[in-house]
């Protein structure tokens, strides 16, 4: 199957997956006993943040590969994944903040989990800004590969923040030792949405990598023209 076909298939699967996830989240999963209906924001917030971890993990791996092998393709994937990761993290923070207002009584608090996630967002916004600032693409790729590797190290800190410090944010419900602490119907909604957002990430990554490859090609052609 050609790249374009895979991209289209992923887009279709993601759209269907998101529609199914929405139905399961709103029609199948029951409202939370304590939080009520507003808990359904978790079917958006949790998949968004978990897929952003995946996006930054991809940045981490492809950055190491770029430094080792200097292949454009690895850099294109790292750059694209970082941009999608920033979008997903920003949306996860926004959704969490909207959930926090009726549940915690505040839009934002300088809790360890929230603060370390905001730091992750800032690191990768810096990564994208650095990309835009450096003219030479290969130099920009090298500097950003180093930043991408360092930036990823914030994720274990985010994950463990609820264990290491006393936080308002609840402990991990899925990525934890032992069985998940969520009711089975809610787990179905969470996993369905997680799968849909993972497909959406894959679709966006395919699309974004194509843009990055065109950028590299343009830069190569410009250098050829300049002699």
């Amino acid at each position: 199957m050609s790249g374009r076909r895979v991209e289209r298939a992923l887009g279709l699967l993601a759209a269907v997956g998101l529609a199914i996830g929405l139905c399961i989240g709103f029609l199948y999963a029951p409202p939370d006993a304590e939080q009520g209906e507003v808990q359904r924001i978790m079917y958006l917030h949790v998949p968004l943040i978990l897929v952003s971890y995946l996006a930054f993990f991809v940045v981490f791996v492809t950055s190491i590969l770029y430094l080792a092998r200097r292949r454009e393709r690895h850099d294109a994937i790292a750059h694209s994944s970082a941009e999608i990761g920033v979008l997903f993290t920003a949306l996860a923070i926004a959704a969490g903040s909207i959930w926090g207002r009726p549940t915690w009584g505040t839009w934002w608090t300088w809790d360890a989990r929230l603060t370390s996630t905001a730091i992750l967002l800032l690191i990768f916004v810096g990564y994208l800004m650095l990309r835009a600032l450096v003219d030479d693409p290969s130099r920009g790729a090298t500097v950003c590969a180093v930043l991408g590797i360092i930036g990823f190290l914030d994720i274990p800190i985010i994950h463990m923040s609820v264990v290491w410090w006393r936080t308002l944010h609840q402990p991990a419900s899925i990525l934890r030792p032992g069985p998940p602490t969520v009711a089975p119907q809610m787990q179905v909604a969470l996993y369905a949405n997680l799968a849909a957002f993972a497909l959406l990430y894959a679709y966006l990554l395919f699309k974004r990598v194509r843009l990055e490859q065109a950028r590299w090609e343009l830069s190569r052609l410009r250098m050829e023209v300049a002699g």
Partner: protein
Amino acid sequence: MNPWSFLLGAYLLAAVGLLLYLVSVSRRTRAMAEQVAALKRRMKETAR
């Protein structure tokens, strides 16, 4: 507090954000492909 206004706000914000990003990537890709094609055309003309 009405929970549905928060739910609507969160889901709508995510939908708009994702949609705008998708449009932005498509437009940037099209613009880049046009620049590449124009440069290739110019190089071909110069070679002739």
